[in-house]
């Protein structure tokens, strides 16, 4: 079977991990405002990214994601202590990434609220630049 590959199939992909409480709603807000961004962005919804072990992120890179943005709830986080744990864990992921020679700017921990439209778009924009540089 011969398939014509769309340019998108090979385009670098970005995984966006969002929280139900804040950033997922924030991503909806962006949609409601009809702001536009590229479709190589895959939004994953979780109660809190604190659930992911370190190897989850490395596995994502291995499987084909070029960039990961973790949009946490930051100080708005409904779960006690979760943000601190998460940022510590991401710090450990960075160490492993360095060891493995993966540029650390391919993983970004940030905070996006339910109405943070501009922050959301800016993070995507920044990461698009990173993954395009990597691809080039």
């Amino acid at each position, binding site marked *: 079977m011969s*398939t*014509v*590959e*769309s340019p*998108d*199939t090979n385009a670098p*992909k970005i*995984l966006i991990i969002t929280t139900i*409480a804040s950033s*997922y*709603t924030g*991503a*909806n807000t*962006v*949609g*409601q405002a*009809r*702001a*536009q*961004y*590229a*479709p*190589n*962005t*895959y*939004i*994953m*919804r*979780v*109660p*809190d990214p*604190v*659930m*992911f*072990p*370190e190897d*989850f992120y490395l*596995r*994502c890179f291995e*499987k*084909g*994601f070029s960039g990961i943005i973790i949009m946490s709830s930051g100080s*708005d986080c*409904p*779960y*006690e*202590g*979760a943000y601190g*744990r998460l940022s510590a*864990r991401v710090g450990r992921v960075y160490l492993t990434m360095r060891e493995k020679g993966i540029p650390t700017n391919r993983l970004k921990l940030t905070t996006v609220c*339910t*109405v943070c439209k501009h922050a959301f778009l800016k993070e995507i924009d920044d990461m698009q630049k990173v993954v395009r540089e990597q691809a080039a």
Partner: protein
Amino acid sequence: MSNLEPNEPHVGVYICHCGGNISDVIDVKRVATELGLHPNVVISREFPFMCSDAGQKLVIEDIRSGKINRVVIAACSPMLHELTFRKTLQRAALNPFLYEHVNIREQASWVHKGDHEGATQKAIRLARAGVEKILLQDELEEIQAKATKHVLVIGGGPAGLKAALNMAARNLRVTLVEKSSRLGGHLHELDTLYPSGESASALLAKLLAQVNESPLITVVVGTTVTAWDGFVGNFTATLSSGATVNAGAVIMATGYDHVIPAGGEYNYGGDPRVTTLPKLIEHLKTSAGKPLVWNGVPVKSVAFIHCVGSRQTEGVHAPQADGKVNDYCSRVCCTAALHSINVLKARQPDLDIYDLYRDIRTYGRGHEAIYEQASKNGVLFFRFTEDAQPEIREHTVVVKDILTWGEEVEIPADLVVLVTGIKQGAVGELIDMMKLPVSSDRFLQEAHPKLRPVEVANNGFFLAGNCQAPMDLVESSAAAGAAASKIAALLSKDYIPLDPYVARIDSEKCTGCEACIPECSYTGALFMNEGTKKAEVNAALCKGCGACVAVCAPRALDLAGWSIAQMEAMVDAMVTEVPA
């Protein structure tokens, strides 16, 4: 025909057009065809409105016919309709958690309008990810929390009083906690109420009498909530008195504060002839029909300036304490100001009154008549724009008046009344403690303005009155009634059904390493069973954050409905190629 074993997951996939909201951008037929190729997908359809009755019927019929036992719907945001379709599955007698909602509207068709191919491919990948996730999903059961038939109302203003009375009428016990020393809130400040003109004191007396009569309402004044614990159906509030209150639900009726003009705005604080509307109303209340005298000087002319502390623009207005301006409309001030003006004019017909506004927002029932009455009373109106604020001078106010084609007009004024807005009360600590969401205007955020207007996203919290947004008495009474109505339904049974998304442990895999224990922030939620030497979870106390999951080396811990395996399967689906 599918060659799946009967006990294997049979997935039905439904792609919603959402009118043209999705199908105008995404090739929904192609998405459905592509998903149909998945070995576990036995039905893959597209449909104009999945949320419509006909759409839901389609799902029900497919389930009832035995063709499918897992459902994936790619449509709008799950925030809107995940619950709708769970109920659909329930109607078809299928476990409602064997359902995955894929968002291809807010996060695909709406944001990739210019790239139909890219959006379609993304939709295919997201729908596939949904299929992979649901394939690994087990039948979850709702957790039933005990329903304590006791409600905590925080705030003893009219909204809190009204909510308490409503719930007492349904035989729910209520504890009403008021920070100040007396019930009634801002009703104490008011003279007469618009549009009826009735006396605020009389109304308050009536309400207080009803509250006093009710054996089910316990009033605690001069008290705050100092500690907060528990979950819907079983909250525990610790009061400043040291007492604790057990409640199944809580109504936030914490009210509002007046905006105090900041940084010498309109010379407020510096010029004794500049005051605010609340202060004028207080004066009206105490001066009982007498002509207006301010600082011992009889007043002949008054200028009212609207939108002080409301509808502010960055760069024009000084920011509030948190660095943001109040860009919202305070809703009640236009009518309140005009009502007070009419009261003044009735007392003192020869008083010259000037009203400087941006838009007169007498929107409510009977409000426009108040505006008209003010006009007929001879009040002279001036309209200014946000970028040309009126200027206070010696005994005059100067304004660039739109109604006079932008000419500068000099208005004589012995007294300037700033029509100040409303802001969120000083409840920062309380809502931090309760972890309640706040909107950009600092008021408490409802779960959805239309679907769940008086509920907070956090289970068991309800909103009544001005803590949610500025509203007048009629509106906050309605909000209090609506919140009470939701609680009457919530606490009507002996238990409250809760989402089952909590941590769970495969005790076979648990090595008893105890690494997870310090990760948990919720007392009693995760603990070591002394007998088995393995970790255990108390589902009613677990909040489902998943912090413990990440550190479990043998992967014995997982979050029900959000397992790492599911997430990994989704990642794999997202990166799998889509044929063009």
